[in-house]
């Protein structure tokens, strides 16, 4: 049925939550696997739907088929800009891309730094956080986009093309990143870009209608996500087991992947660095605006949203108390 399209789920009486998750290692998968949210909200009907890109999550929000989603910062910037103007709000930072997303040059390509990519062939999945990071890295190194060939490939295809020797470098994430690293050199990782002011994040977003209708559910969800973050910090093996189960990976593999990401402490999320608090919205809003700015330059969006509007789209209600 397409009841979803009718916008159901946003009225106070309708106790159902439709959550989109993605297959990257994060606390979100722990929440799902261990049923944390279901335990916290026993009288809610919760459906988890897997998506494989932020673009399709945005589309599903447009279709009013989702209430909560795990989504990259780059698609969120698009979603908050014209023409999409999706009525959703950022309510959580699931993780910050660290060493799990990186730009790797293939051994034998002769590339040793980002500047050396001129005239080379570099692959990345377009419209992803990695794409954003690649362009940011090039920008930082003063390389113009037109000076190299950027190829649109999905991670698994990057791995295939890489093995054949068709590519000189690629910006991608785990698990394909691991395969690339075996015969390549990391030029820059998202961890470094984050410290340089261009972080890419995985965010939790909540549709405005849902947040208005069910603030208590949003609180419960944030608490569950926070609980998962705690678990990742305190019991990585246990978290990895849950994540592995969701990703069809062995616990060891999952733990390895998990170790390469940056997971904030729940308390940090309400710091000025990220979401901020009810009174003062954090730097995340600036970060999203700069991402939108970047997309505008790419002609991918019509207009950059005003900082104030983006700040309104940061769900800080109850922060920092809620996460305590």
């Amino acid at each position, binding site marked *: 049925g397409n009841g979803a399209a009718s916008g159901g789920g946003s009225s106070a009486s309708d106790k159902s939550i439709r959550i989109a998750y993605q297959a990257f290692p994060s606390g979100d998968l722990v929440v799902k696997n261990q049923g944390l949210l279901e335990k916290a909200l026993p009288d809610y009907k919760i459906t988890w739907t897997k998506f494989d890109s932020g673009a399709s999550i945005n589309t599903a929000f447009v*279709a009013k088929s989702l209430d909560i989603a795990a989504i990259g910062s780059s698609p969120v910037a698009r979603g908050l800009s014209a023409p999409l103007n999706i009525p959703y709000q950022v309510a959580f930072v699931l993780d910050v891309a660290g060493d799990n997303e990186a730009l790797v040059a293939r051994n034998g390509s002769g590339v040793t730094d980002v500047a050396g990519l001129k005239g080379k062939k570099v692959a990345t999945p377009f419209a992803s956080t990695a794409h954003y990071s690649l362009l940011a890295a090039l920008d930082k190194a003063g390389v113009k986009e037109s000076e190299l060939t950027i190829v649109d490939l999905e991670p698994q295809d990057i791995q295939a093309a890489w093995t054949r020797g068709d590519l000189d470098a690629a910006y991608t994430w785990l698990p394909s990143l691991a395969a690339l690293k075996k015969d390549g050199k990391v030029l820059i990782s998202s961890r470094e870009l984050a410290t340089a002011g261009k972080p890419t994040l995985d965010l939790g977003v909540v549709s405005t209608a849902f947040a208005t209708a069910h603030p208590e559910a949003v609180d419960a969800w944030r608490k569950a996500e926070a609980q998962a973050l705690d678990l990742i910090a305190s019991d990585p093996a246990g978290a990895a087991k849950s994540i592995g189960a969701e990703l069809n990976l062995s616990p060891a593999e999952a733990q390895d992947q998990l170790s390469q990401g940056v997971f904030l402490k729940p308390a940090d999320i309400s710091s000025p660095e990220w979401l901020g608090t009810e009174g003062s919205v954090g730097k995340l809003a600036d970060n999203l605006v700069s991402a939108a700015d970047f997309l505008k330059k790419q002609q991918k969006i019509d207009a950059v949203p005003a900082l104030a509007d983006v700040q309104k789209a940061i769900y800080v209600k109850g922060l920092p108390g809620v996460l305590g």
Partner: protein
Amino acid sequence: MAVAPSATLASPRRKRRILLRLVALVVLYGLWEIAARTTRNPTFIPSPGAVWHQLIVTSTVHGGIRGYSGHLLIEHLGVSLRRILIGSAIGVAGGLVLGLIMGTVTWFRVVTEPVVTFVRALPPLAYFSLFIIWFGIDETPKLWLLSIAALPPVAVATAAAVLGAPTGLVEAARALGAGKWQAVRDVVLPHALPEIFTGVRIAVGVAYSSVVAAETINGVPGIGGMVRDAQRYSQTDVVVLGLFAIGLSGLLIDALLQIAEKRLIPWRGRA
């Protein structure tokens, strides 16, 4: 073709057929095994053994994990088959009606033919997001996609076959007092049946091969969703397993269609 031995030879012929196919199967298996051993890269070409292992893993509950992505292989397949069958059924029915009217009512053909040709050139991946926006993320958009994939072959084949109806036999029916639609039902349609069947077989194949596209969004459980997931993690053995599940069930359905065809069209080659 024509000068075929008579039907009395059926039994030894069937035996030879089965034998031939077995030989072909063994040869293919051998080639695969050799290819897997020489490449020695399970992400490129997984060995038959690895795929077999995955078949067992994805078909059982192991260590508290149910199959793949929380569903057994058979469940993935079942869900997808349901989608394919419903989608194909809608597409085939729609294509049949559309093709029939297009083939018989001139003004309707003049108006709709360009539209149908236009639509059938459109890539599902391009308009799928529109479906999501219109129909949500559950079954509806998937069924729409599969139906729209299955419709054109049937519509085109039906319209062409109807247009090629044999003048002589249509006249014979009219001479016996058949009205226009009676002639369509009793002459044009039966004459078109073989071509329509071909269209249906192609349509079901196209629906099959669209299942991954249909299951790009909210595709688990679903064999297409499973394959996509496995792909993302370079679990080539699961991908190959999924391909086998798809291909073999497709083979089965096509065989059923061919049996139906033989039953329904005893006059093939005689018209």
